[in-house]
């Protein structure tokens, strides 16, 4: 595989803060096939990037969100501009350790405000809602199918989300409290489904995954910390999943945002913190991508919440990440700087972040990854977010 040495991103607004990362390392050198892990965390409901990473240094923040200011008293400051929401204690630690970075003011190419279409584009990688039936993460798996050890892909969810649906093999698992079926019954079901293309394929995939997760001891995914540990247990072993995905709800904070956001953020933080510890040595070769469909309005609405907006923030974690930095241009919160007079203006294409980071991490050609995962974009893949 030939890798271009100059994969500097073509997006508008250069990554000034990542200048040191611009020199492109030869990432193919240090890579052992089959040792890289990727976890995609999808935040459904439009996570408020300005609540996660509050731009306290921007005078517009206090003007629009005076109500939220007490939340950031004594919060960890990241540079002179930003403060991290206090619910993100574990993420903050990872940031200090150089294992986490943020890209602020990110958005997909979607510029309307429907959750469902926004999520459809973020998951399918299409430019028009409902235009693609498979997901970008599944196509990423597909790009690696020819490798010596093609990755096993897994959704930790009761059903496979769109991002992981498609041609390439993917399975799903979520703990339940149903009693295991008897071996004889399972065997008979296998034979019953033998000639059935759809059920036969689902069935063999289910049996394989269940064997892998045999002793999780969990009955559901409600405990964020245990869920983080479960995901790690399904990924860290050699035979485990190398590409995984989980979805978290609770981000659609239209009313009384402060409490609702703190709850959702606390959950996410607990999951990521537990996952980090439980991955053990495999953490060093792990990339976690945390993204949402779009952001929220800059100003609070009439019910102390925020409505559907445009740009949000994206979090990257893992030992593989060039952490301790906030990438992306800050668009500003002055009236004239807002998108349509109400939203944070996007300065970095979210697709560029996802394609660039996952391709460099998995040892794929970023330009090729960009066209396969997110076709028909004008922006190129973003480089330098992960270590070689």
């Amino acid at each position, binding site marked *: 595989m030939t890798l271009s040495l100059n994969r500097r991103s073509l997006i508008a607004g250069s990554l000034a803060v990542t200048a040191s990362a611009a020199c492109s390392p030869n990432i193919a050198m240090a890579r052992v096939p089959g040792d890289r892990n990727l976890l995609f965390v999808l935040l*459904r409901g439009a996570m408020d990037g300005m609540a996660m990473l509050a731009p306290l240094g921007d005078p517009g923040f206090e003007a629009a969100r005076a109500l939220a200011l007490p939340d950031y008293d004594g919060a960890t400051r990241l540079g002179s501009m930003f403060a991290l929401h206090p619910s993100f204690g574990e993420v903050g630690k990872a940031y200090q350790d150089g294992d986490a970075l943020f890209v602020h003011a990110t958005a997909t190419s979607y510029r*309307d*405000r*429907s*959750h*469902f*279409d926004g999520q459809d584009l973020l998951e399918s990688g299409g430019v028009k*809602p409902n235009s693609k*039936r498979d997901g970008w993460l599944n196509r990423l798996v597909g790009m690696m199918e020819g490798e010596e050890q093609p990755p096993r892909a897994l959704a930790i969810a*009761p*059903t*496979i989300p*769109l991002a992981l*649906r498609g041609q390439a093999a993917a*399975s*799903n*698992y*979520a703990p*339940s*409290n*149903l*009693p*295991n*079926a*008897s071996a*004889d*019954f*399972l065997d*008979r*079901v296998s*034979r*019953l*489904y*033998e000639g*059935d293309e*759809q*059920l036969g394929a*689902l*069935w063999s*995939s*289910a*049996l394989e*995954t*269940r064997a892998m997760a045999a002793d999780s001891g969990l009955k*559901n995914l*409600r*405990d*964020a910390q245990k869920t983080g540990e479960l995901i790690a247990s399904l990924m860290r072993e050699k035979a485990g999943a190398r590409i995984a995905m989980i979805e978290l*709800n*609770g981000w659609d904070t*239209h*009313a009384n945002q402060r*409490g609702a956001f703190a709850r959702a953020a606390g959950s996410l933080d607990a999951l990521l913190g537990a996952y980090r510890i439980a991955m053990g040595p495999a953490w060093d070769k792990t990339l976690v991508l945390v993204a949402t469909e779009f952001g929220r309005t800059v100003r609070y*609405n*009439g*019910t102390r*919440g925020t*409505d*559907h907006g445009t740009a949000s923030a994206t979090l990257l974690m893992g030992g593989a990440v060039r952490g301790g930095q906030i990438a992306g241009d800050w668009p500003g919160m002055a009236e004239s700087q807002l998108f*349509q007079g109400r939203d944070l203006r996007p300065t970095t294409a979210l697709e560029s972040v996802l394609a660039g980071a996952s391709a460099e991490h998995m040892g794929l050609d970023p330009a090729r990854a960009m066209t396969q995962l997110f076709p028909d974009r004008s922006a190129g893949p973003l480089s330098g977010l992960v270590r070689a």
Partner: protein
Amino acid sequence: MSKTSIALNRFGYGLHHGTRAPSEPQADLLRQLAAFNPRPGALADRPDSSGEAGELIQVIRQQQRKSKQDAARAAEMSSAQEVKKMTREERIDQLPPELRGKVREAYGRLRADIEARVNVAVASPTPFAERLVHFWSNHFSVTAQKQGTPFEVGNHEFYAIRPNLNGRFSDMLKAAVLHPAMLLYLDQWQSSGPNSPFNKRRKGRGRRGLNENLAREIMELHTLGVNGGYSQADVTEFARALTGWTVKGLARIKRFAEPQSSGAVFIAAAHEPGSRQVMGRNYTDAGARQAVAILDDLAARPATARFLATKLARHFTSDTPPASLVTRLESDFLRTGGDLASLHRTLVRSPEPWANAPAKFRQPFEWLVSVMRFTGVETLGGRRTIGVLRQLGQEPWKAPSPAGFDDVNASWAGPDALLRRVELAERIARNAPADAIMERAQAAFPDALSEPTRTWLSRAESGHQALGLMLVSPEMMRR
């Protein structure tokens, strides 16, 4: 599939144990539409819980003055949100007594309503009509995951959807989106006009204002569809028109509350004054009627007809419904002014839903109801019904978004989902009558039972095992 098997399984919830398949399948579906009972026995005795949500919120607010912490916990506990670490019961136990009782009552109501929803479908002599109830209920999806809503989600389906099943779409729309369950779910109950008398009197932190959540979802999800021709300005104008619509039982506003037929109340003092422009039309300020007039116009738009026709066709044919069917349903809707009875009859009389091969994977709720009808199990009990549906991945009134549960195969036909059905089937089959399974299978899928299913049923080592296999057979999984 034979026509009879299609009528039973694609249109209905499967044959009920001990009953006979109809001899004229199409005529029988039309009969079911006419014979539908909006309030069968199990719902007739149900106590009316309207107004309880507002009272619960009121108790929480009163408590707020005494203990902020207890009130916050009660607010969290009064919705069916996921809770961590402690069980729900343990957390409810820690609430002060005046809150504890009310929160318990909310859960009791939700549990009873979920059980009633399942049992009505299991026992129904008009299962096709029940499928339509659940289709429309999902179109106007509400969840029990917001403060107070466990009291209201049952009311929403039983009193806003069911009575309007064969009426006008505009009536179902108004009943469903102006219902307290929806006003609570999509934050409308707290929205108020920035220039309303209510806000003009208040200063600083007490001031409230607009929340555009409900207005947007009505346009995007309930009527026009996402490309239905509306703009951000239309959403905001509609949100202004909706201000004043809220739930009853809140003490502060009690004396201003004007009761509405949807079960909600209108507070004129919270309504944004002035006329509104929505999609090129002008609506004079007529108080509560202003939003109603907008809803009537939205219901009549061609984009609405197209959007609803596509969804209904998708539910009864395949993920990509035939264009011919969509067009026929759309014209029917426009010609009749949104007469749902006519729309449902046109669906039955169309050739497309009678296509031979099954193209849809049964959703978990559909599968469970069909399993119960096949086995003759009348009820699983309240707690177990919820538990089983949760494990299957489709708890009623807990759809992940206001768009309701997905209606495409890929959302349901997953490896883990299949394994869960197998685990549950073995357990249900162990405790159900298991005689003459082959005969019952042939009766439930007349001339439609596949060779492998017959083979493996006949090789089963016991009746119970044969029943278990039948419950997870390809015939039971797809419709």
